[in-house]
């Protein structure tokens, strides 16, 4: 067979539209997931059992089920249970937030745990409230400790968007599948799709390394 470059050129505009959707879902999922994850981690580390128990159940539930099952549940089962309508894109974003939130919670929990107790005591001993100690003493150190694992999480979330093809979200992988089912140029289309992911994720990984380097303690 011959590699038909024109198949890629023809498909590129639509694939890039798919990339837009991928980036939109990933960004919303990451921002929401980070907020949810940090709150969950703070609850896990410093809350009483009324906070800790549901937080633990949430993390266990998400880590113990496949993301495909989660999105199926949120897209098909949840609307029936709650009597609401949910677009595929909304379901995808909610799934990513809930999913990434659980993994982020574990990352942040570990990072908070790793901050030396002495620093917390130094802050408290000055007469700061615990909230201030958390915000101004513990958080800056925990943030740095969480960065490498959070980098992995960011990359994982971007790639996880591809599974939303199962509910018909027009993201990059779904677009590739649709184009291929019309022109049957599997080699060209999947090469193009893979390369687009690779470029985006490499750029992302590089910028994360820059952030990590800038934040490194002297």
């Amino acid at each position: 067979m011959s590699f038909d470059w024109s198949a890629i050129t023809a498909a590129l505009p639509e694939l890039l539209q798919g990339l837009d959707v991928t980036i939109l879902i990933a960004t919303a999922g990451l921002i929401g997931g980070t907020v949810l994850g940090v709150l969950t981690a703070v609850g896990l580390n410093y809350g009483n059992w009324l906070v800790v128990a549901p937080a633990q159940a949430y993390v266990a539930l998400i880590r113990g089920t496949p993301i495909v099952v989660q999105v199926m549940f949120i897209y098909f089962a949840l609307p029936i249970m709650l009597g609401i309508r949910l677009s595929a894109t909304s379901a995808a974003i909610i799934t990513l937030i809930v999913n990434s939130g659980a993994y982020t919670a574990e990352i942040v929990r570990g990072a908070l745990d790793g901050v030396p107790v002495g620093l917390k005591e130094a802050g408290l001993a000055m007469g700061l409230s615990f909230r201030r100690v958390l915000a101004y003493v513990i958080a800056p150190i925990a943030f740095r400790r969480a960065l490498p694992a959070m980098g992995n999480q960011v990359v994982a979330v971007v790639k996880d968007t591809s599974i939303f093809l199962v509910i018909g979200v027009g993201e990059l992988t779904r677009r590739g599948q649709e184009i291929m089912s019309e022109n049957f140029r599997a080699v060209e289309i999947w090469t193009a799709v893979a390369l687009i992911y690779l470029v985006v994720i490499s750029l992302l990984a590089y910028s994360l390394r820059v952030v990590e380097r800038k934040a490194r303690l002297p």
Partner: protein
Amino acid sequence: MSMIEFREATKRFGSHVVLRPLNLRIETGEVAVIIGPSGSGKSTMLRCINVLETISGGDLRVDDISVLGPSRDVRRIRLEAGMVFQQFNLFPNLTAMQNVMFGPIQARGRTKAEAREIAAALLQKVGLAERMNHYPSQLSGGQQQRVAIARALAVEPKVMLFDEPTSALDPELRQEVLKVMQTLATEGMTMVVVTHEMNFARRVGSRLLFLDGGRLAHDGNPAELLTAPPSERFREFLQHVD
């Protein structure tokens, strides 16, 4: 009114008794040096004063504020009782200057400009004016501990608590820290110092407290106690330290 007053104060960790009912007053201007074998409760006693540990029974008042009061009272006590730790506990992401500015800004609500002025003066005082832009990891242990002392002083406490401030330091670095502490004592700062430095206790201390098994075994003038140990137990302890 005493600066610090233990009234039948006790401390337990579970079933393990660390401090037996303790009665003790430390007055303004005193330099109380606490010594004793490891596990005798020295550090716990100090940590109870600024409520990093909470007493299990009795009462403990700092500047007439009870450590058992609401969290607002606990914060007031901590503002008045500066703490210097064995492991320095400087904030590694901040420079020496920023470490010292931290308390005035965060705990005392000072402006950045005011905090900078306070910090510059204190770093000068501990002899580290030239190092103010260094991070903790770029300073020697002795320098880190001097920054930590400046950081505690910047909150303008009425009493300074030192928890084995030289124990993590090489012998040749201890003197620079002890000298700063001696200067503070000369200036009239009320101090409670847990240490194994007997020379410091003798020269700088106005009072020596010997803790043994969670009990205050001896309490008196450092020179007198060290010259004529009143008990066999104390004599033994001194031999092991020297």
